[in-house]
């Protein structure tokens, strides 16, 4: 009995000390971790939007079980410069891919950014982050473009040997385009 208590006691003491230490480190880093995520999202939005002076708080829209964040951007005189749409897909080869798509008020795409944290294969699927691929999504009409990869009969050239990753990105944008069309009134009305 005394022996078991000794075993339980020593393991408990170690776990308590470890827990306290982790609580301290978590407290010291959590703010910065949240700030890093925030900075990255804002930087991606600024990168894909047309020239603007301020980005407003996001408008949340749910369509086909997906949640989209529309961030309206404005110029100094208050005119709408465009939207940055934050979207997520789980259809990537390595699971989740988070993206930021910029659109002008007339529904033309102005840029695409892939947010860090995706798990696509380096050298193949990870090429979705390269400019050459992202450029294929620029200057296209959100409503009238056939948002599918060439292999599925669409208008977007997929990356060779990375069809799954290319398709995940393209299909996510197609879904976002449908969401924008359906909820256009809400998104524009709330501005």
């Amino acid at each position, binding site marked *: 009995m005394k022996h078991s208590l000794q075993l339980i006691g*020593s393991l408990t003491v170690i776990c308590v000390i470890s827990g306290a*230490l*982790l609580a301290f480190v*978590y407290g010291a880093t959590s703010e*910065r971790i949240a700030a*890093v995520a925030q900075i990255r999202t804002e930087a991606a939005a600024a990168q894909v939007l047309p020239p603007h002076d301020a980005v407003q708080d996001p408008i949340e829209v749910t369509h086909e079980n997906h949640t989209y964040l529309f961030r309206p951007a404005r110029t100094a005189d208050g005119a709408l410069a465009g939207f940055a749409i934050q979207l997520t897909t789980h259809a990537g080869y390595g699971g989740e891919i988070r993206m930021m798509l910029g659109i002008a008020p007339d529904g033309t795409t102005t840029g695409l950014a892939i947010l*860090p*944290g995706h798990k696509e294969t*380096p*050298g193949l699927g990870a090429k979705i982050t390269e400019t050459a691929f992202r450029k294929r999504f620029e200057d296209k009409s959100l409503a009238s473009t056939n948002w599918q990869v060439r292999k599925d009969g669409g208008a977007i050239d997929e990356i060779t040997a990375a069809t799954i990753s290319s398709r995940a990105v393209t299909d996510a944008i197609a879904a976002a385009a449908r969401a924008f069309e359906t909820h256009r009134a809400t998104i524009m009305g709330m501005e």
Partner: protein
Amino acid sequence: MFWKTFSKGIWKENPVLKLVLGMCPTLAVTTSLENALGMGLASTFVLLCSNAVISSIRNLIPEKVRIPCFIVVIATFVTIVDLVMAAFVPDLHDALGIFIPLIVVNCIILGRAEAFASRHRTMLSIVDGLGMGVGFTLALAALGACREIIGNGTLTIWAGLPRLVLPTESPATLLILAPGGFIMLGLLLAGMNHLSAWQARRTGKAIPLPATMDCRTCTLCKWGS
């Protein structure tokens, strides 16, 4: 004494190239030199801290619960590294992804705790952890550099520092992918064994045989012993 403990981790008992331990992170994160260095340094820090703590409490831990105690100590330091990296080097943290939490089950770290830190003085255990960590980092860096140069045509030491870009249009992408990891590791292991044999022959000592994967000690097929 200290120097011998330190240097054995780098060459004679190099965890990757001699003991062939920790293969999961070794093969998975060495797609570039930067990732390899990041993983090596993170593991070194964990190894150093866990060796120091385990060695200093080795007389307080009852024999029967020593493994759970070691794992709790190691997991604590790994979580600290994970949080600190997420806060201060987020890009590297993203690149290493799942392999940071998996340092907990890296057999090099538990192996050193069990084989060395639980039976030696604290100072000596710290030196051992440092040596093993440096050996692990060097091996990963060698593997990462080879794979990045051949497989991607670039060599990046750290984001922000100037990077080397080879004038090639189509690098051998295979080397970046999983099979390339095995191929490159095999070549490095062969080179390491060849070097040890050459060194032994020159100094007139007996040629050290690889611990496993040798026809004379393997019993997998009918030609084995």
